[in-house]
């Protein structure tokens, strides 16, 4: 496990440097440049570091560099990022921040206990979960061993073969590098990331739930709630990719709510590099959420950060997505995909034009925006590619009873009924203030879009079988926990602010 800790440390240093270098409008615990910022800062730092390390590792491996050399490069990059951030923004330690409430301290204690219990579980339990063995750890072991791995799609060992080929390589690269730092491949090691991501859920939720305002205990409650969902803790020890998707999707929405577009795009890219499902199920909703919020807000606040940062962050998923389109699915279909991409881009440009966007594009500062418009082609391409390939794989069929079955799975079992009950109640309660708030409108669009995509997936494709067997559907729903809870807490936060405003306004 020492290797795992060293690996986490490298990622934290890298992420700390990157996170400090990124443009940021909000800081945790009101300590703008301290070492110990809010938990959201540390969670974001880890997740940014994880994405940076695995993407860089993927590119270096693709370029032909050996895994051992990659493992040497990573600490160097981490040190460079940290030094650069210190040079750009001098560190002024402020330790634990201004003040800590008792309930925040309690949350830290609970998280520490869970992390310790999780470590105990990792060391005691064997790896028995199917996808973890085949798709993630198995392929990582092949990459680590270096004998059953190839980037050539014609090779029998292409990407280590076991598991679907469109599963991204973030976890695979992470585990393989972890094996190098550890001096050997280890079954406990290959589930360590999900345990850390479980903690990250609390951090990013803490930041996101505070975006609407409201009392501090509410954001603490939100952070606790997301880690207390029983299925989340199970997945914290599973080695699956679903909890990574949940964490990145949550971080992306939290960044949108905090008006940090680059971070939102970066975490959306991290989500795309974590598993294949969210490209179709979550990413379209997040993109629409961002643009809804931006279009709604820019009229009132001209200084609203533009979409260039968001799209630029999102475009960092390009290496994997291009690899997916051109190598995994093959050049024979690429032209078709690019034609579809052209169609998607045309629709997007038309949509922008309707809001006078095209005029502003040329009037304004936005070289970034122009680059962003190009970058929008990346998610469009990706969604098209994955949607088509998935449809080809699971088939098109119509199941009219799917929405009702889905509702039964969501509300009728031990696995996650309380999450959806709370989210529905909170969204209903906060619906009116959300309609008046730009970010609130974005959240409502996201809720509608993801609901439609889930219903569509089960109603119109062979994925219906997953719904009937009540297996994979639960893991898919787990990817939405963070979004559901944060959406609900955001609505309640707006309600708090509205009540506080009413109380202060003169009679």
């Amino acid at each position: 496990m020492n290797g795992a800790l060293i690996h986490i440390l490298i990622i934290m240093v890298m992420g700390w440097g990157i996170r400090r270098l990124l443009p940021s409008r909000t800081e945790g615990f009101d300590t703008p440049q301290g070492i110990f910022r809010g938990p959201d800062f540390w969670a974001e730092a880890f997740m940014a570091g994880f994405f940076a390390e695995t993407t860089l590792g993927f590119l270096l491996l693709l370029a032909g560099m050996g895994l051992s050399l990659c493992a040497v490069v990573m600490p160097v990059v981490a040190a460079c990022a940290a030094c650069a951030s210190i040079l750009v923004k001098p560190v002024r330690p402020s330790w634990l921040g201004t003040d800590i409430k008792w309930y925040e301290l309690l949350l830290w204690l609970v998280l520490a206990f869970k992390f310790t219990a999780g470590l105990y579980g990792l060391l005691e339990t064997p790896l028995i979960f199917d996808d973890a063995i085949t798709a993630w750890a198995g392929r990582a072991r092949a990459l680590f061993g270096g004998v059953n791995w190839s980037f050539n799609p014609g090779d029998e060992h292409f990407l280590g073969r076991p598991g679907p080929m469109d599963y991204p390589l973030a976890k695979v690269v992470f585990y393989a590098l972890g094996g190098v730092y550890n001096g050997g491949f280890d079954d406990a090691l290959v589930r360590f990331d999900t345990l850390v991501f479980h903690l990250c859920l609390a951090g990013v939720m803490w930041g996101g739930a505070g975006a609407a305002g409201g009392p501090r205990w509410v954001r603490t409650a939100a952070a606790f709630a997301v880690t207390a969902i029983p299925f989340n803790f199970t997945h914290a020890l599973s080695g699956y990719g679903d909890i990574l998707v949940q964490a990145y999707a949550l971080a992306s929405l939290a960044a949108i709510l905090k008006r940090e577009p680059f971070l939102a795009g970066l975490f959306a890219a991290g989500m795309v590099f974590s598993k294949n499902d969210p490209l179709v199920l979550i990413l379209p909703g997040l993109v629409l959420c961002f643009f809804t919020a931006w279009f709604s807000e820019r009229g009132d606040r001209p200084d609203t950060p533009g979409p260039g940062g968001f799209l630029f962050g999102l475009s960092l998923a390009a290496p994997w997505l291009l690899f997916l389109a051109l190598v995994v699915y093959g050049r024979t279909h690429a032209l078709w995909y690019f034609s579809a991409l052209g169609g998607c881009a045309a629709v997007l440009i038309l949509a922008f034009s309707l809001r006078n966007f095209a005029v502003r594009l040329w009037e304004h500062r936005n070289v970034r925006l122009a680059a962003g418009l190009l970058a929008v082609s990346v998610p469009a391409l990706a969604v098209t590619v994955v949607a088509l390939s998935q449809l080809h794989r699971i088939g098109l069929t119509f199941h009219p009873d799917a929405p009702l079955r889905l509702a039964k799975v969501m509300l009728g079992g031990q696995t996650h009924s309380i999450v959806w009950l709370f989210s529905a109640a909170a969204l209903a309660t906060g619906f009116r203030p959300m309609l008046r708030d730009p970010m609130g409108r974005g959240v409502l669009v996201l809720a509608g879009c993801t609901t439609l995509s889930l219903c569509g997936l089960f109603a119109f494709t062979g994925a219906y079988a997953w719904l009937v067997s009540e297996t994979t559907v639960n893991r898919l729903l787990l990817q939405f926990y963070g979004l559901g809870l944060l959406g609900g807490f955001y609505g309640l936060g707006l309600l708090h602010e509205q009540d506080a405003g009413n109380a202060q306004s003169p009679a």
Partner: protein
Amino acid sequence: MAESSTPLCSIRGERPAPQAGPALVAVLLLAVLLWVPWTPAASAAGPAGPGQPQFSVLGKNVPLDTAILSMDLPESGTRLRIGWMSPNGDWRDTEVFSVKGSHLYDLRGRPGWTGTARLVVLADRPGVRGEVRPPGVLDELRLPFQSVPYLPRLVNLEPEVRFLGLPWHLWMAGVFLLLTATAVALRGLKAASWALPLALVAVLGLNDVRGMASYLSMVGGIRSNAFVTDIQRFGAFADGLAAKAGNRSVSISHLPWPYGVHLKYRFMETPVTSKNKADLLVTTRNGGIGIVPNPGRSK
């Protein structure tokens, strides 16, 4: 090269197995891997041999609607089948996973677990101590906090837990709605902005205490989980096979899930190739699992 008739190692150890070993190993392996469906009629027919019943009787003439099952078993994680006979002689059955030691199994709400049963039995496991009885207060309090078996299905579905005969999630939803409704009734609709988070934290906090207790109990008993210990033993065995292969290329034959998956996983750091190119074969031939030189390699 002539085909070797003896595997280089077997699942039971590092040394070559004796002549009778491979057959025994195969039988043991198959016994673990294969589930032979139990038929009530067969069990009810009585003993398989003189004085050797195939089942354990857990209760006679018991009302099932409010009854739970208590059993004392030596291991966790094995599939058990509980059968019961209705007054008109029809047999019903259901499945549970064993948990080591004295454990309560709540079958309330399962299809057919209703009315009065003339006979309740545990199939294929003679000599197990257990009874079907109405739960006491302590039993009801103990039920939600008990250990659950560590099984692959955990990653897809949380095990259902019951309290006072009702599913635990209904209690959670009920308490959540009750707390929220009370706050709204006393303080108006605006109270929902603080009542909803408080109710959520209260319900999830309580559930978290239950879940962590159950989880720690599960991890604590992991070595008594038959499925897990079998996987661990098989994993260690497969590691030994992979070490024997060294840098030579191997071809892996198929084993049933999950052993086939684990075998491939252990060999991912060894050159794995098709049978006609491999130096060695990991094979289940000759009644055992082992690693043998590839007889077709020299052709």
